[in-house]
């Protein structure tokens, strides 16, 4: 156990030495904190319309820091709520795809042989499908709720994770400690849950960090097209769509949520790269 702890401590130390990754982590934490707390502090709510100041540009004088949209809704609150919803959907979708992917991959890697062949063939076939188009079918077929959205995105996002987990699991299966455990009489369930999955965690963390921005992009892509999050709920995607519609007269409506989205995606990418280097010094 102490060996495992020192591995993580080592990784943390290496991560702290990576300035881009540390700064990104701080920015993300700050953004998450503001997105969680901000709407509670603000005097406005997301759907509240201020008829005396519709389409006001950002500034301090009108009481709307980031301006308002054409309906007089406060953009500061809407961008924060949008960030919160986009982050929440991305996190949940990532968790869904990690749970499916790691389980699938670990079982395939453990079983090997024909079971592995069938399971990975299934992944190959699904990989060849244009997954995003299936998410679109899902959103057409079922009601467009945020809950469905993260399940749909997560359900198509697990394939890469399954491949990675399976490769790692197969390598682990050849290690002595697994052999010792099998010799000591451990059953398949115990091997998978106690030995394979914990040892996959490092890889999983790296992939999760790199998967979250992908999930955010998928969610905002669908919301941008109008088949994701629906009004009056705000997500970064539908805020950008709203802004794009009014960009000639009110460019800030586009620039604020777009800037926020780009910042989040870039930070997660830096953090993921940093984590990969920290957890796997050989690849750095």
């Amino acid at each position, binding site marked *: 156990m102490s060996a495992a702890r020192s591995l993580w401590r080592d990784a943390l130390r290496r991560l702290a030495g990576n300035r881009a990754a540390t700064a990104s982590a701080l920015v993300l934490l700050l953004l998450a904190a503001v997105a969680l707390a901000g709407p509670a502090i603000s005097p406005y709510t997301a759907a509240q319309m201020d008829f005396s100041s519709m389409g006001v540009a950002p500034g301090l004088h009108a009481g709307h820091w980031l301006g308002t949209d054409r309906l007089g809704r406060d953009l500061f609150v809407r961008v924060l709520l949008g960030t919160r919803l986009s982050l929440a959907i991305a996190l949940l979708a990532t968790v869904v795809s990690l749970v499916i992917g790691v389980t699938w991959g670990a079982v395939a890697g453990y079983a090997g042989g024909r079971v592995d062949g069938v399971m990975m063939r299934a992944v190959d076939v699904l990989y060849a499908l*244009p997954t995003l188009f299936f998410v679109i079918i899902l959103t057409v077929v079922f009601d467009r709720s945020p809950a469905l959205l993260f399940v749909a995105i997560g359900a198509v996002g697990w394939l890469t994770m399954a491949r990675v987990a399976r490769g790692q699991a197969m390598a682990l299966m050849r290690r002595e400690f697994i052999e010792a455990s099998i010799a000591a009489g451990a059953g398949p369930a115990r091997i998978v849950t106690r030995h394979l999955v914990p040892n996959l965690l490092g890889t999983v963390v790296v992939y999760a960090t790199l998967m979250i921005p992908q999930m955010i992009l998928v969610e905002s892509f669908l919301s941008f097209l109008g088949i994701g999050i629906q009004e009056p709920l705000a997500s970064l995607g539908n805020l950008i769509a709203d802004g794009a519609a009014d960009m000639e007269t009110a460019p800030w409506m586009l620039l604020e949520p777009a800037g926020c989205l780009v910042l989040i995606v870039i930070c997660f990418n830096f953090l993921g790269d940093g984590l990969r280097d920290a957890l796997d010094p050989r690849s750095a």
Partner: protein
Amino acid sequence: MLVYVLKRIAGSIPTLAIIVALSFGLVRLAPGGPFDEEQALPAEIKANLQRAYGLDQPLPVQFGRYVRGLLHGDFGPSFKFKDFTVTELIASGLPVSLELGALAMLAAVLLGVPLGVAAALDHNGPGDRLIMGGAALGVAVPVFVVAPLAALVFGIYLGWLPVSGWEPGKLADMVLPAATLALPVMAYVARLARASMLETLRAPFVAAARARGVPRGRLLLRHALPAALTPVVSYLGPAAAAILTGSLVVETIFGLPGIGRYLVQGALNRDYTLVMGMVIVYAAFMILMNLLVDVAYAWLDPRVRPGAGH
């Protein structure tokens, strides 16, 4: 080589069959049908409509009929674009989408590769930093952000290019959409080309060629570049996927009458047959692209060429 190509074609038929079955199954899982409008239709009218579209038949019969139609190039009637079949909508949109996608793909590769190579030759220099910084941004900024910004800057502020609309054969209409669509792919291609060029330049065979006195230009173009291109070629499959998805946004924003826009409208209108047909066309196209990429890969890299080393 021919056997390899035929084998790959045969191998892609089950994938296509699964796609057709999956999209048909998903659509039929839907709670409610295409005729559940806000104003409920009288029962007899609804029954008549369902009979007209064959929805009163058992599912296997409907599936059989749909597949038979597909084999004859018939995707069925559109539920919401009345008087149009899905095949007609696809036929009207496909040329526009193909032109857009091909232009974007060409721009991405023809600009991305030289940029990546230039960055590799200036390893850690200012040019390298500049190109890679731009590429990092290009990868992170999604098409649906770039597209409205490009329309705002080049279309409205500068007034250089048309912002929306499309006339057959008018290239100016395609410049902004194709450029925005190409940008993220170009950024990724530049990164790949740089990384593999750096690796290739350190490879023994390049050193050997240099030792033989091969001139620098020939060394780069004839020896290093083909070897460095293989990762770029294998990325072209995913690149086609990225361009396809991006085209949904770009066609919607710039008002191009391609199939991407029909797919989005179909999804918004819950036009089941239209969405299914579009997904099948996209999937078939993806499979074709992956096939072409594999063949090109085998042609470029002797190590994976089928039959080599046996």
